Structure formats: C-alpha cells, structure tokens
C-alpha cells in the first residue's frame, strides 16, 4: 500500500533498496551517506532483504565488488559520497566501459582539501566524464523516485549504462520530509525482472570479459559505449512518464518553474532549487518576469531541450555548486552557455558559484541574482561573467 512516511534522504534510498531488493549491495560507509549502508545492513540482519550485502574495506573495492557482481549477472547497487566517490573514480570508468548497469546513490559532498563533510556537487562533477548517467534530486521524494527509476534506465538493453542519483549531503540526506512511499509490490513490478547480458555465472559459455584493447579496437569499443548513453534520453523520458502514470509524479529532463513568460531565468540543480522557487515567487510579486529551470538529468545533458527552454530569456544566471578551477565557468554554466551558442536570440548568460562546502544559500541570495539579471537585461551589459554568491572576498 502506498503510504506517507517521514523519512530523511538516506532513509528514502534505503527504503527503495528494501523494496527493490537488488541481488548484491556493496558499499563502504562515508559521511553523509553512511546511514544508507547501515540501514541496508540492518534490513539484511532483520531478514527483510534476500540480496547479498557486502561491506568491503574501501570504496575502491566496493565499486570493484559491484563490477564483479554485475558482470556475474545480477542487479547491483552502492552508495557513497565525496572522497568515497573520488576513490572509486578509476572503477567508475570501468563500470561504464564494461556496460554494467550499476546504480549508485551519492549524498553529494565537497571534496578535500580542506576537509569538509557538507554538501556540494564537487564529487559527482568530478565524475562527469566517467560515462555514468547523472540524475539530481531536489528533495527526499525526488531522491526516492529517481533512485527507483535509475534501475529501469541503467538496465534498459539499449542503454546498459550505470546511473548515479545525487541527493545533496545533509540538506537532503539528513532532512526528514514526509514522502509518499509506494507499495512494495508496485515498486518491484515497476522495476521488473533483471535481464543479464553475457553473465559470467552462465559457465556454459566460457567468455572473456575485459580483455586488453589496443589501437585497432579501443576507439570503436569506446564509440559503442557512448552509443549507450546516447540512447538513454528516450528511455529516461519513457521511464519518467511511466512512473508518473503509475505513481502520479512524472519526470523529464528538467523542471520549469514560472518560465512561461520569463525574461530572466535562474538555472539551478538539486536542493537549492526549492529556495530558488521561493525567491522567484517573491520577485514575481515585485513584478519581475523571472523563472527557474532545474536540470534533473546532467548526463546525458539535454542541451537541445534546455536551449529551447531558455531561448527567449533575455538574461540567464547559471548557479553551480562546484567549481572548475581555471575553466571558463563551472560545469553547469559551460554546458548551458554552449547549448545556447546556436540560439538566434542569444540570451546573456552568467555564472555564480554558490554553496561550496555546504555554505547556505538563502532567498536573499537568489534575489540578489534576480536584481543582477534585471540589470543585465536592461543594459545588455555583463559586468561579471563568473562570480560567487554568499562569499566573503
């Protein structure tokens, strides 16, 4: 039965894991995703899940266990954050290169140094070229819904690409919300049976997985891998719609908030989008035509659709919760600006890095951005292309 439950982000992921009961779960505890691992361990101890729970000695081994298990031929998940994801980095490329549909929950957290346990997107942005599909969540409900959909997307035979679902560390992972937990059987049914492709455990076929590829094959195999993620938009869309039909909450590539007639637009992902929406409401009351666009899927990046959605804006501010030192702006900004390059109307696009190391972002900061956008739209001039929000300089 579908019920309302007060759960924090980590608990919503664990709840989805209990319902899906993946065959192998391998994860190493790290703040702020530790509770996901602990809760799964408790589910296993209480006999609520049948899958194997493996607690390796590091995140590198956790992802290696996932890779071994997924190659063996079954459904696999993990959870981590920050340094843990960084330690997995080598294996992330191998998971996607071997086309293994592993699903990972990432409680987004900043990277050292300096060491900090709070939320930003440095960890997953560091993995943006690893070949994983990346989906970000605004709140606990989205984290739960995205995590369930991730299995369908990853395992689709035209995709066969690992998926990570981001939920902001502490802000989502540790905040309790009342969420709609769907019926166990309905969730199981939605996710469906796992279909293994060339499983190692079918020993009637003595296959060789992961051989060495030299100059005459590597490129073609990499191209084949890219095909998987290129096939995923159709699947992400279908799964998002089907989820909506079944559970009443539909998902696409991004959410548009009060964008119909917006001349100004703020682009922001994850939990900050909620605050941003409040700011948009206040600015609208002041008569400013502003809207918000919240990307949900960062890889594959829906560049055509986003360009279409932003085309008519006069000024756009892209807010990034990570930095890319030395680059022309932070990761989300470079994608958006590049997506708009061919647009005939050429909206002005600026970048603000915010919230590193969990620094709070409030309505007033969004309103500050709104005021700057208004000025850019009026004067047609950009004074600062890439700046920071709520930072002492």
């Amino acid at each position, binding site marked *: 039965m579908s019920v309302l439950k007060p759960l924090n982000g980590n608990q919503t992921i664990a709840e989805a894991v209990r319902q899906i009961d993946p065959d192998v779960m391998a994860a190493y505890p790290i703040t702020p995703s530790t509770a996901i691992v602990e809760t799964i361990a408790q589910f296993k101890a209480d006999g609520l899940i049948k899958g194997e729970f493996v607690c*390796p000695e590091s995140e*590198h081994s956790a992802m*290696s266990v996932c890779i071994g298990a997924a190659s*063996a*031929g*079954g459904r696999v998940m993990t959870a981590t954050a920050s340094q843990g994801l960084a330690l997995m980095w080598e294996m992330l490329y191998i998971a996607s290169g071997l086309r293994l549909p592993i699903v990972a929950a990432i409680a987004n957290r900043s990277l050292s140094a300096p060491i900090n346990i709070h939320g930003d997107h440095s960890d997953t942005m560091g993995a943006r070229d690893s070949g994983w599909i990346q989906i970000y969540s605004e709140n606990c409900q989205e984290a739960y819904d995205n995590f369930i959909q991730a299995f369908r997307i990853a395992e689709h035979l035209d995709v066969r690409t690992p998926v990570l679902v981001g939920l902001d560390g502490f802000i989502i992972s540790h905040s309790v919300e009342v969420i709609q937990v769907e019926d166990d059987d309905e969730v199981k049914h939605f996710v469906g049976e796992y279909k293994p492709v060339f499983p190692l*455990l079918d*020993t009637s076929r003595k296959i060789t*997985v992961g051989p*060495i590829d030299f100059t005459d094959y590597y490129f073609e195999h990499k191209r084949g891998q890219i095909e998987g993620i290129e096939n995923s938009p159709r699947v992400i869309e279908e799964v998002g719609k089907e989820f909506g039909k079944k559970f009443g909450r539909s998902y696409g590539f991004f959410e548009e908030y009060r964008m119909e007639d917006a001349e100004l637009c703020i682009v922001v992902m994850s939990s900050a989008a909620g605050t941003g929406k409040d700011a948009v409401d206040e600015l609208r009351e002041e008569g400013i035509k502003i809207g918000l666009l919240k990307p949900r899927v960062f890889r594959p990046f829906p560049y055509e659709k986003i360009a279409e959605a932003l085309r008519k804006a006069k000024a756009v501010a892209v807010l990034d919760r990570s930095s890319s030192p030395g680059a022309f702006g932070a990761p989300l900004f470079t994608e958006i600006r590049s997506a708009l390059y061919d647009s005939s109307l050429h909206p002005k696009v600026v970048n603000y890095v915010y919230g590193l190391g969990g620094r709070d972002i409030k309505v007033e900061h969004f309103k500050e951005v709104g005021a700057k956008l208004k000025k850019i739209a009026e004067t047609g001039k950009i004074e600062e292309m890439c700046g920071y929000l709520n930072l002492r300089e």
Partner: protein
Amino acid sequence: MAKLKDLAKMEDRLVAGHGMCLGCGIPIIFKIVLRATEDPLIVANATGCLEVCTTIFPRTAWNVTWVHSAFENAAATIAGVEAMFKALKKKGKIPQDKKIKFLGVGGDGGTYDIGLQALSGAVERGHDIVYVCYDNNAYANTGGQRSSATPMGASATTSPAGEKSPGKIQPRKDLTRVLVAHKIPYVAQASPARWQDLYNKAKKAFEIEGPAFLNVLCPCPTEWKYEESKGIKMTQMATDTCFWPLYEVENGKYKINYKPKEKKPVLEWLKPQGRFRHLFKEENAWMLEAIQKDVDRDWEELNKFAAL
C-alpha cells in the same frame, strides 16, 4: 596422487597462443593450478603479465570464464562474482546444486603491493574464493621495477645496482605469513619445480570452504636474467636453499612440505641470475652475508612454527 599422464589428458584451461616470454613460469603454474578442479571456474585476473599476454582482443587464451577489471582489485572483483553467485542461489535463480569455483590471480605487483588491501579485505570477509599469486619478484609487465617481493640485493630498474648501491637494500615482504595472520582456512607456498605439491595445494585450496591463498614462486628469465631453459631449475634452487620453502598452513597449523636433504648455500641460487651479478664484487660481500642470514633466520623460524 595425481599422475602427470592423467593431468596431461585433461582439457587445457589456458591454451596455446598467448604471448608470454620464452621460458616464462606463469603458463606452467596455471596449467597445473587450473587442472586442480573439475568444476566450472571463473577467474578474475589483475592487470599484469598474465592478463596482458593472454587476452589481446579479439583473441583469448582462456578456456574458462575470465574477467579483468583493474590492477589492484582482482580479489574484490572475484569477491563480487562470488557474492552474486550466493545471492542468485538464495533467490532460487541458480540451482542449489550448481558448483562454480572462484579464482583470483595476480602477480606480486598486483598482490603484495597495489592489491594487498583488496586481498586482505576479501579474505577477511570470508568469501569462498581461491587467490593465487604468481610471484616473479618484480613488476615484470612494466619492465622489471622493484616490488615488495623483490629479494634483498636484486637489481631492479627502480632499485638498480650502481657504484654506490648494491641493488635493493630491503628484505622482501613475507606475504604468505601476512595471509596466515588473517586466520583463513588455508594458506600455502608452492613452486612449479615440485608440480605435484603445487597441484595438491591448488586442489586443497579449491576444495576448502572459505578463502584460500596460494603464493607461487614464478621464474622470470626476462627480469631474473638467466638462461630461458633453466626456469624450473631456478625455482628448485630457491627451495633447496630454503630461500622459498614449500609449506602450508591449514587452520593455523604449519606443515613444511619439502625439506631439502642438504640445505644449500643461498649463493647457489643467486649466482646464475644476472640480477644478483653485482653482489659478487668484493665490496658487496656484506650483502651476500646479510641475505644468507635472512634466509637462515626465516627457515629456522618456519621450523619452529611447524614443530608447534
């Protein structure tokens, strides 16, 4: 007791066509190890000579199911495969009577050094796996750099002998006993020179429930620098000098499987190998003494453990 002629009749699980060096000990070791079980096998291979030389796409020399993911994680990878096997059995997706053996393999680079953490973790967690290390005393795949298994006094490309250096200064890591300290059911040290012993140990390792570890000395003509046809002789000398004793530790109980009638001076093992050539200069005589002392102390200690 297995007979060589019966083993020869078994289907090869690592077949011809691989690209390993002339005189390499790796295929000799694995042709024996892979025959020690008749059950279906899944092998997870660490990056290294064995992996690179046997699976250049689109060819494979493996006549069993095989997987490679990275250098430092063969133990974690095979642990994942084994965990999935257990899970699917529990969920009734694999028949209860289905048997598969899980084997992790790596060289001393992938086992003693970069892969030690993953190996330690996997055996501590009690996965039902066998791990075989082919220890050729160097990072042979990348051209002979030192590893923690490189013997004291050996010249390697990152611990070269020179005017001011007698080669590697430090004694080798005793990985076999590191594994013993994990209190796993079975740990053994073997050599291709005594194939029957190697076969018996591999068989036992496969049969025992829980993690088992086999450390096998692997002759490497390229990095040890001896005549290619003399590899087996080299490993025989290593055991006759007690540089590489053959022993096993079953549930904590030590047993020495081969005691040379006459323990030969370690010089006899060192002399034919080019990597030790510089030790025979006058100024390095102290190093030869130090090596002999090290071997004597280890052998004495091992005998004490076996007497317990």
